[in-house]
């Protein structure tokens, strides 16, 4: 009988040699005359264990990791024994995975991303079938009732956005997926696209039915060539089997989908800059109003959502709004795919109901820093998110709880820094990044970021208290201008990492440490 062995093909696995592992397994099987089929699945999201190889057993899929190609002959010699030093036990029972609530990521790592059959066998396209039997307003009502909020960072209720587009007059409407995942510390969108691309295709199709759009675009950053290839293959397969096209599953309703590749501009993750880019222009931010929901792509009503928001829609339509709504706390409903990264022992993707604390994530899941040194600061929500000191790690993962701390939960990306981190240097980097990536339309962002780098350089170079104090006053003043005067979040939120670093770690800016617990 053929034994299946799974080797991930997600780029996180490829980046540490998964292709070589797969080739070594195939070669060893051939040499030893064993009947083995190597299946390329997506990643389980236990990224410190990549390449995580899974072997089919009567009890379930048994894991080994991290496997290097050089380990493969010995693994065969040991007949993939549970006593091998790389043995991890049944993958589904690894506590890191077993304790998660995987809704959006239910299939991720289990299925082969290039197989529509696999997708269908694991509840795929059930949401679309339900949606086809519903009126557009009913679909929108279900998404609204689920409590789903935009997972891209701004956390705007998805159903309310869809309702605006549904009600907007116009015969032509669009669905745009923001897959320009440029924030350091985030990779959930990438994992969805590389490990379960059909769920995004299905979610966008449902969105099209809900608001009356017949065309969708996925804007993927150029840094993600694997994701682009996976997505294009999935779209082609879906089209061939009638899940996309002029007559979706014989319903008489049309939906077409196209991938557009970005070109290395961080600002195109801002929704209006993204629309400009799809239109073939420089990615310059638009002033709002008008809202994209009313005048978006090519001036038409447009739903623009993040990958995770759209990829969560199928399960809501499959299992019902109440099922999804039951997870979470307060006004943050459902689950958040936390991305744990940076200086952490066990980094990866952790999908959990809202409400877990940062400390649980950092220690119970993450196992502390990778370096073994004390953790000093964590940045949550990407390069425009605040740095949180230890005094704030008992905060629950909840949009409102973070807002109350003058921080942002954003898309749930967490980057960990150990005690060697120089917070003034990281604050400088935040300003420098803004200067490199600003679209240049508004002055506070374009000029402010460059001035910010200069002022922080002066702070880091000066040891004289009167001068130092003057520069810090200037930096705060500059941040105030950027916060209140910028057109979009790029300039408007760069002060978050800068001021949180300054407020919580004044000693790194040459100041006395008097305000350790001030927010």
């Amino acid at each position, binding site marked *: 009988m053929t034994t299946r062995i799974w080797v991930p093909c997600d780029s996180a696995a490829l980046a540490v040699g998964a292709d070589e592992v797969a080739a070594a397994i195939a070669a060893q099987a051939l040499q030893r005359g064993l009947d083995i089929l190597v299946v390329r699945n997506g990643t389980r999201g236990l990224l410190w264990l990549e390449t995580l190889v899974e072997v089919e057993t009567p009890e379930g899929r048994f894991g080994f990791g991290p496997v290097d190609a050089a380990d493969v002959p010995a693994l065969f010699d040991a007949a993939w024994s549970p006593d091998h030093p790389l043995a991890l036990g049944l993958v589904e029972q690894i506590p890191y995975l077993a304790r998660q609530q995987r809704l959006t990521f239910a299939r991720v790592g289990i299925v082969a991303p290039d197989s529509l059959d696999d997708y269908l066998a694991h509840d795929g396209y059930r949401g679309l079938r339900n949606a086809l039997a519903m009126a557009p307003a009913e679909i929108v009502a279900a998404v609204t009732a689920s409590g789903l909020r935009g997972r891209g960072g701004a956390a705007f209720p998805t159903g309310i956005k869809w309702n605006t587009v549904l009600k907007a007059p116009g015969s032509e409407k669009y669905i745009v997926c923001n897959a320009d995942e440029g924030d350091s510390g985030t990779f959930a969108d990438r994992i969805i696209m590389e490990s379960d691309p059909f769920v995004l295709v299905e979610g966008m199709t449902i969105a099209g039915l809900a608001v009356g759009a017949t065309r969708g675009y996925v804007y993927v950053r150029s840094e993600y060539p694997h994701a682009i290839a996976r997505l294009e293959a999935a779209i082609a397969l879906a089209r061939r089997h009638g899940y996309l096209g002029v007559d979706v599953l014989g319903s008489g309703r049309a939906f077409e989908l196209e991938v557009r590749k970005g*070109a290395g501009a961080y600002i195109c993750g801002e929704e209006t800059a993204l629309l400009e880019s799809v239109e*073939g222009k420089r990615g310059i931010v638009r002033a709002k109003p008008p809202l994209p929901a009313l005048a978006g792509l090519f001036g038409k009503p447009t739903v623009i959502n993040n990958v995770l928001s759209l990829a969560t829609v199928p399960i809501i339509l499959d299992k019902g709004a109440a099922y999804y709504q039951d997870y979470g706390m307060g006004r943050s409903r459902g689950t958040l795919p936390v991305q744990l990264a940076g200086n952490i022992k066990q980094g990866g993707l952790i999908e959990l109901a809202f409400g877990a604390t940062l400390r649980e994530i950092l220690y119970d899941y993450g196992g502390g820093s990778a370096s073994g040194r004390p953790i000093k600061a964590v940045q949550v929500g990407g390069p425009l998110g605040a740095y949180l000191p230890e005094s704030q790690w008992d905060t629950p993962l909840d949009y409102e709880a973070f807002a109350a701390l003058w921080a942002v939960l954003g898309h749930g990306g967490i980057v960990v820094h150990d005690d060697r981190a120089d917070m003034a240097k990281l604050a400088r980097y935040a300003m420098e990044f803004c200067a490199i990536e600003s679209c240049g339309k508004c002055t506070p962002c374009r000029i402010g970021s460059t001035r910010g780098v200069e002022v922080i350089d002066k702070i880091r170079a000066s040891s004289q208290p009167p001068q130092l104090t003057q520069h810090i006053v200037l930096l705060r003043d500059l941040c105030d201008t950027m916060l209140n005067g910028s057109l979009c979040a790029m300039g408007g939120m760069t002060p978050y990492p800068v001021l949180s670093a300054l407020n919580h770690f004044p000693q790194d800016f040459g100041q006395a440490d008097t305000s350790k617990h001030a927010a």
Partner: protein
Amino acid sequence: MSSATASPVSTAAAKAAAPSATALTTIDAILADLFARLGNRQDQLLPVLHGLQDSAGYIPPERVPEIAQHFNLSRAEVHGVITFYHYFRSEPPPRCVIQLCRAEACQSMGADGLLEHAERALGCSLHGRSADGTFGLEPVYCLGQCASAPALTINEAVFARVTPARFDALVADIANVDNNSREAV
């Protein structure tokens, strides 16, 4: 080094650095094909630029007027788009483009030290090229490998958990491939 004895790192690096099958088509033919397939609506400008760079390696500035005319745009508009996006190149790339992630997660795992090492090893600074012109060192801001930092790409193949020693192995491997192909000629 033959491929049979190559370590996993080596084969991956060799694959990343292998010169792509040189298309004999001229830029004229590439552009004609792209224009015919993609049409002239402005939203096809980025796909055309991508197609050209994918085939030719860069976007020759002397082709800007032709592209502008096709889309009925001004040369300034097309130039503006090309220069706005970091990804587009206006000159031929070196044989091996190494992009080091400079973002926070990689910084927390020693990206600054890796950059210093890379600069020493290649004898050039960020945005520069090695003396023999083989390697170009460029920054990139996030490759989505933040839990396996630090990360880099070599001609779009991504490598994570890169230590200075692994960096040296990847670079040496590419140099070996080059030596072998020279010997073959």
